[in-house]
């Protein structure tokens, strides 16, 4: 029997593969012409929206909370945009650059995807946003706070990126003011973990602290997976800072607060963490050491949030069987809502019922969002994609048992007190 040659079918398959094209380019489909491409959605097909968050590992609560916020937003609009059902494709980015790159590559190759929501980690967004923008996809960030992502001098790769969350340039300034004015501290030491979020936030806080007249005695770094924090804590201890600020993620923060009591030099220093650890994962990883631990964060108490926030909490608890597990669900909800509104506005139907959405038109519409009263606060987008507002608060954990975690109670807000 003659043996089949495999080369011919293989070459044919490769040629077919090559004929599928990706990437943004000007095209006209139906009634819509757009310079970044047009998404064609047939009559009964779903609208595909992408999402990428950290949904595994120690920081799962951060991404999962945002994802749930988006899902509730879509539930509220009946899971329908412009007469099509919504299909949300979610990828896991693991809260690091490689994960963000992988997630973005996967999402960019999904056929007929309209826009992308997420992520929760600035490290992932920094890698992913350029890849998505290359495919013409606008990326609405839900919990990424690194200032560089919407800075005025950001590179053209990031023009497709916007976010409904505040920028850490606000968080860092408020942190420094709280340290200087309320804690009455004149010396500050910072520890970051090399990620864009932590390093930029620590830098903003340190710079503003210096402007206020304080002294930054140490700016150290650890890796996110370090277990032995004693050398860095001993080194900082020799300088005897009044406050030690470490806006690191769950694993590193837990190690620091566990090991800090063993360093005699740090007995009088105040250990303050950042917003990434308002999650049950911190209590799981740190146990009793998390009792009385304070973190600076955005204010998520009902008095400060938008009017519809308590209603949102009810829906969240009903749908998922537990209260919010992190601080950024409201921003994700708002991101989902403004995306849906923008798609509705930009979509054009032809007489066969097929919907066409121009990618650049969607981008421009999203960036023009102004005066929207979201549940996380007023949403006003500037030309660099910064849409979220910021209210500062400090939270304190009251109990080390992970089952007692409830945003607002454990940890509870201790500042501002009115």
């Amino acid at each position, binding site marked *: 029997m003659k043996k089949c040659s495999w080369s011919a079918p293989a070459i044919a*398959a490769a040629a*077919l*593969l090559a*004929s*599928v094209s990706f990437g943004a380019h000007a095209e006209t489909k139906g009634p819509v012409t757009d310079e970044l491409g047009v998404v064609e959605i047939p009559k009964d097909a779903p609208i595909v929206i992408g999402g990428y968050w950290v949904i595994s590992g120690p920081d799962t609560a951060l991404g999962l909370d945002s994802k749930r916020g988006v899902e509730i937003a879509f539930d509220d609009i009946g899971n329908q945009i412009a007469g099509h059902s919504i299909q949300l494709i979610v990828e896991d980015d693991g809260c690091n650059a490689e994960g963000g790159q992988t997630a973005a590559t996967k999402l960019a190759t999904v*056929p007929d995807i309209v826009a992308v929501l997420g992520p929760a980690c600035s490290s992932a967004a920094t890698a992913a946003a350029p890849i998505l923008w290359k495919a013409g996809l606008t990326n609405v960030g839900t919990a990424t706070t690194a200032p560089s992502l919407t800075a005025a001098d950001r590179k053209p790769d990031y023009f497709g990126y916007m976010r409904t969350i505040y920028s850490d340039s606000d968080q860092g300034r408020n942190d420094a003011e709280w340290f200087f004015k309320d804690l009455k501290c004149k010396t500050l030491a910072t520890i970051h973990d090399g990620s864009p979020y932590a390093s930029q936030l620590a830098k903003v806080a340190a710079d503003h602290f210096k402007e206020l007249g304080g002294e930054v005695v140490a700016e150290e770094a650890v890796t996110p997976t370090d277990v032995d924090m004693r050398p860095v804590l001993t080194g900082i201890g020799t300088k005897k800072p009044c406050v030690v600020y470490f806006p690191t993620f769950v694993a590193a923060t837990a190690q620091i607060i566990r090991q800090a009591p063993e360093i005699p030099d740090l007995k009088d220093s105040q250990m303050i963490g950042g917003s990434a650890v308002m999650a049950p994962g911190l209590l799981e990883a740190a146990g009793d050491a998390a009792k009385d631990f304070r973190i600076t964060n955005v204010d998520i108490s009902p008095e400060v949030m938008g009017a519809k926030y308590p209603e949102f909490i009810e829906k969240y608890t009903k749908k998922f069987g537990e209260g919010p597990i992190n601080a950024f669900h409201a921003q994700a909800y708002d991101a989902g809502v403004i995306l849906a509104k923008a798609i509705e506005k930009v979509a054009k139907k032809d007489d066969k019922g097929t919907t066409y959405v121009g990618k650049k038109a969607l981008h421009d519409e999203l960036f023009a969002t102004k005066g929207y009263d979201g549940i996380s606060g007023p949403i006003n987008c500037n030309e660099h994609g910064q849409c979220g507002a910021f209210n500062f608060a400090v939270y304190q954990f009251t109990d080390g048992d992970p089952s007692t975690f409830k945003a607002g109670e454990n940890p509870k807000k201790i500042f501002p007190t009115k």
Partner: protein
Amino acid sequence: MSFEVVVSSRLDERGSSSWRFVINTGLQMGGTGLALAFVGILTMFNNRPIIVGLVTLGYATLGALFLVAGILVGYKRPFPQLPMILAGGAAAGAIAALLVAILPLAMSMVNLRSVFLSLDKPLLDMLTFYVQPPGLGILCLIAVGPLLAIIGVLIVALPQTIRHPISGGIIAAGLAGLFQELIRPILANSCVT
């Protein structure tokens, strides 16, 4: 004098009896199935349909384990006559299925999810074939094992002219189902189809 006889570390090739082999095969396949369930692979695979509405990758994997039990017995031929080999294969499949069935039994009595993350309700539903009450589903599982193992023995026992097309067809259908999301855009975007 031959020194090879004396070196006892080389003498671990004990002649295993035929039934011992059958039992071992069943235990190994059952153990593999349990391990896959514990680690969460079965649940993950179950979300991936091969033939939509009929067979998911999870069921294909589980079925493949029982099939392989039968195939191994068929290859080794521990008994001279075919009916005995079929019985041996069925026994191996039954042992494997019994071992795997311990899991839904335990899960329906005790909630293990607090310790083992993957042993959740979707896995229980999958292992009991979505049949209520779970006891009936467990019996279905125990019945499926020997059935697939007998098929496995038959696949080996059949002559090559029949075996090749059947196994080739099943494998091709499986691969097409597995890679459907890759194949679909190619077919949709190409000028040929």
